[in-house]
């Protein structure tokens, strides 16, 4: 992405508290969960920016006291053929952010996956079920405090 386009995005988002960073050369916007819906809808609908596609919603467990969880959204622009990332640091105790399904329909399954693996709640999600693990499972496997070998007897199996 060229510098001019990045400046344009910055000026369009001037009203919000954002921080610019990068992921190995690709720009990334760091923001707090309160503004995420408005920022995303500007990024999607503004014709000069036009990030039409949400490719993925990725969860990260940084395993630290403050702001333990992080959600990284990967956006792609079909018009300008480039990408941008949005990083949302989340609370350690009660990780929660507004669901992006209001902006992109495709966020549905990506958020379900992130919820399944990290226990991050997406408020306003129409169908927040687990996607890989069984519905009655209690743990979140990709959290750093979940052991690699799993927790014995945590999956219900029928008796002989």
């Amino acid at each position, binding site marked *: 992405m060229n510098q001019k386009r990045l400046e344009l995005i910055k000026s369009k988002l001037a009203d919000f508290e954002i921080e610019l960073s990068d992921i190995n050369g690709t720009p990334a916007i760091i923001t707090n969960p309160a503004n995420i819906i408005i920022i995303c809808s500007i990024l999607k609908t503004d014709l000069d920016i036009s990030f039409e596609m949400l490719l993925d919603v*990725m969860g990260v467990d940084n395993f630290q006291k403050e702001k333990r969880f992080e959600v990284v959204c990967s956006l792609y622009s079909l018009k300008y053929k480039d990408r941008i990332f949005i990083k949302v640091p989340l609370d350690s105790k009660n990780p929660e952010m507004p669901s992006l399904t209001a902006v992109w329909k495709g966020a549905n*399954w*990506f958020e379900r996956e992130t919820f399944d693996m990290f226990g991050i709640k997406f408020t306003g999600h129409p169908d927040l079920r687990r*996607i*890989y693990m069984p519905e009655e499972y209690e743990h979140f496997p990709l959290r750093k405090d979940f052991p690699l070998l799993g927790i014995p007897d945590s999956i219900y199996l029928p008796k002989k």
Partner: protein
Amino acid sequence: MHNTVFEKLQNDDPDIRKTKILEALESEDLNVSFNDALENEMVLNMGPQHPATHGVLRLLVSLDGETIRKVVPDLGFLHRGYEKLAEATTYHEFIPHTDRLDYLQPIANNVAYTMAVEKLIHIEVPERGKYIRTICSELGRIQSHLIAYGTMVMDIGALTPFLWAMREREKILDIYDILTGVRFTTSYTRIGGVAQDIPDTAIAAIKKFIDEFPKYLQEMRDIIERNKIFIVRTEGIGYISKEDLIDLGITGPILRAAGVSRDLRKDDPYLIYDKLDFDIPVFNDSDCLSRYYVRIEEMIQSTRILHQCLDKMPKGLYNSNNPKKVLPKKERVYTKMEELIHDFMLINFGVNPPIGESYSAVESSKGELGFYIKSNGSGYPFRLKIHSPSFCNLQSMPIMMKDCMISDTVPIIGSVDPVMGEADK
């Protein structure tokens, strides 16, 4: 803590035991009563052990007569937790696991994964290595599209083209046998290059294959494309609008069949794709038939790419000259002290990338295959996220199947071409 779950389940309260997936399927107008099943809408369970669902995909279908009202896919039957496993393996040790993601084109996954690691540790692969990797990716694409073609027409009822497609695929597996030493789970690439140089016998085998392949592909097309049963069962079936596809974040042949020319090989060239001359096939109808055409045309373009790669491939190094990060050759490990030390350090402690993150994506046969890697400076990835195209593509299925007939589910699954190993990770 676990007792509560068991108690809950053992209490046998039917309301609690009714899983949430059925709740998701229900709507106000769905009214199931078993007294008079034919009068009502019916819930049908398809899979996970169903021959037409390409693996272990489960679909819950709500039917009104033979018309589909709603579909809820259920995933996770092949969930092996590769993202968790990756956090306990070194960067090298994860390469064999990538074979098991999209098992129809293991070699292309190897390329995609090692490219992501190289982007993180800033290694440049020599020109010959890039050419070998491009050849691998394109062979993988043909291999995967042949299965997509074969299984789609087989599910519709034509067995012969499937056998023909398998015969051609067998030749690609034979090429892998020469090139990598194994036929199926190749694990061919290494960080900084590939495991071994491409031998002349493999080049001759690839040449022979791509010379003959267009003729056989034409045969396969002739038997299918003027077949009335095939056309009637795919034309106009499984329509999904372009806007829906973009909104859902779907990539690959499905998006190109809807008239959007998005291909990372052109839009964001990696390896040597910017030096090659090829076209991106785009169709506009966005139904099963145009997805079929996109895949067939892509196979033809892949043979074009392979021809150019073989003609242009330079001599020279195929592995990056970076002894701290790239595994040395085995015969040197056994005879030279320096290489022995490097080998020991790389195997035991890993490549130790700098602290940071990286995202790298390639155009696999099903769409954008990306790897997001976060490193904390140790030899193990702190977080590895696989952006798998099959998982995203499956999300389009409920929209495609809405208001279709029950028999249309089979060509629709075939045209989406999901690989559950990749979708379930």
